[in-house]
């Protein structure tokens, strides 16, 4: 198991290299770079700009640029953000933390609601409650996230119950520890609900489907034939089998959150990795973009490795060599 994890982590390196190179190539294909904006500024001299370009090797071709960047990254130096005028690593750290908080909140929200709801609907298949929740799920799935966000933001600004966007209130720094927590939680509500709703809907359907399939399997009937109580049949025998495929999805959902959350982060002005990516691309902030891409990719792969480990833990049939 340990060797398996080490090997998986080792394979992470070439994957990240390929991914970041494609990213580098893509942003270089876009016309111009960050300094083209500076060149139009008469207060900055040509010499200063060429000096910058030389310093960051931007006057060279894309392969050389990438090579220098890679060498620096291997020393944990992610370069310098042109737009923020600080090292990229500092921005990433902060943004990663913010995205982590949002992701954690979304994961808790979705999974704690979707899994029990899926089980409930499967056990009560075709009854009114099952149909009702299925109907809600389809609404949740079909409502576009950005529209839902705007709807909630409108509601927030009209009623004033919830803050409309951002991560902290104005006087955040003066609040006590508990006050800070409450303030952050309030800001989390809208993005969490928005990102979570479509997630709950999909997961609920999946969990319901898995559960229905398992409930029809022969070992569940065999468990009933043994004279076990219905609770034991459902929650010990069926559930354990139905939850297994969800573990793989859990890993995937970590990555899905990072990309899927971008739009919501932008609309809710949540300072996470997703909205950072957009800013970086727009201002052609090369190193910030590359760093952000690397970080997102890293999290994605870690998500899948985590899922594999979890799966081996819950399913005795899976053994990694």
């Amino acid at each position, binding site marked *: 198991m340990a060797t398996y994890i080490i090997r998986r982590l080792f394979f992470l390196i070439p994957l990240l290299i390929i991914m970041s190179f494609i990213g580098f190539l893509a942003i270089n294909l876009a016309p111009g770079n960050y300094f083209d904006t500076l060149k139009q500024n008469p207060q900055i001299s040509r010499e200063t700009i060429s000096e910058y370009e030389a310093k960051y090797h931007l006057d060279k071709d894309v392969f050389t640029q990438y090579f220098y960047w890679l060498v620096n990254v291997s020393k944990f130096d992610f370069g310098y953000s042109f737009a923020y005028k600080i090292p990229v690593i500092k921005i990433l750290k902060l943004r990663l933390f913010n995205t982590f908080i949002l992701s954690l909140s979304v994961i808790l929200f979705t999974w704690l609601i979707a899994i029990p709801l899926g089980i409930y609907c499967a056990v009560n298949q075709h009854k009114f409650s099952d149909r009702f929740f299925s109907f809600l799920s389809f609404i949740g799935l079909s409502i576009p996230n950005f529209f839902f966000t705007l709807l909630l933001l409108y509601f927030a600004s009209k009623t004033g119950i919830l803050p409309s966007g951002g991560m902290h209130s104005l006087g955040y720094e003066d609040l006590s520890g508990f006050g800070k927590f409450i303030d952050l939680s309030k800001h989390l509500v809208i993005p969490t609900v928005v990102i979570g709703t479509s997630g709950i809907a999909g997961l609920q359907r999946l969990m319901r489907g898995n559960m229905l399939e398992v409930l029809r399997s022969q070992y569940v009937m065999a468990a009933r034939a043994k004279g076990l109580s*219905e609770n034991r049949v459902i929650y010990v025998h069926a559930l354990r089998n139905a939850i297994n495929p969800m573990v793989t999805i859990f890993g995937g959902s970590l990555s899905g959150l990072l990309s899927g959350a971008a739009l919501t982060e932008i609309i809710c002005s949540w300072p996470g990795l997703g909205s950072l990516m957009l800013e970086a691309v727009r201002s052609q902030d090369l190193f910030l973009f590359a760093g952000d891409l690397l970080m997102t990719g890293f999290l994605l792969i870690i998500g899948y490795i985590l899922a594999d480990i979890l799966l081996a833990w819950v399913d005795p049939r899976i053994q990694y060599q």
Partner: protein
Amino acid sequence: MENILEIKNLHTYFFSDEAQVKAVENLNLKVKKGEVLALVGESACGKSVSAYSVMGLIDSPGKIVKGEIIFKGQDLLKLPKKKMQAIRGQDISLVFQEPGSSLNPLYTIGLQIDEMIRAHNKTASKEDRGKRILELLNKVGISNPQSRIKDYPYNFSGGQAQRIMIAMALSCEPKLLIADEPTTSLDVTIQAQIMNLFMRLRQELDFTLILITHNLALCSEVADRVAIMYAGRIVEEALIEEIFKNPLHPYTKALFASIPQAESKKARLKVIKGAVADPSAKPSGCHFHPRCPLAKNRCKVNYPEYREISPGHSLSCFEI
């Protein structure tokens, strides 16, 4: 001899939006205490559904529409759920067709036997249960049981898994064991081993066995009595010697005729012409009439009454 189980007028239907499938229709069957009764029929003739009906395992969209299942003087269909749950496994046990898919893949076999003993005997201590599991596994011929109770189902072959299922089914010493095609998914040598095991255990533990099968050769070796099922009904019932010597119902005759004979290698294998009656659209009258060589007009209109033609030999056919 006293009857351990009596099924009267049992109707089990499955409902869907398009059709109503009459899986079991007007089933009447008496099972004598201590005997081995073989329930024989083609696939989809309602054998398994009959077994599930007895076990109370018919679930939506299936429903027992009417009938009585008398076991130990009480109608199982009228029992509250909790009481029926206590009977399942304790008094009547079921061994399924595919051992591989009857064991939960995520739990050790030790746990799966243990939970059954615990469900029916709440006072047994952990040590007692552990001893009992080892004893059971020994009895069904799992070698080195001590080291295998912590193994998962995927560690066992099909034959071993069926032995474990049998051990489990017998863990609470049931009076009646229903084996639903217990050897169908196993290869021939293992089939013989498993049948021998059944017969040996029956002598040791003294239970009544209903053996559901489509294998007539198997019946001749183990069964005391045979009931032949076609399209959800029993069409003929007799002692084993009688049915082999003197099969009367055209369907039973056809079944015997279709057993491959080693001597007549060159002759083509005899088959029953036509296809098994579609349970959602059974033929009118006698369900067998489209395939029957004796069919007359009245067979298409009415279902022949089930009658006893000689002591212990009953059938439903107008033409005999």
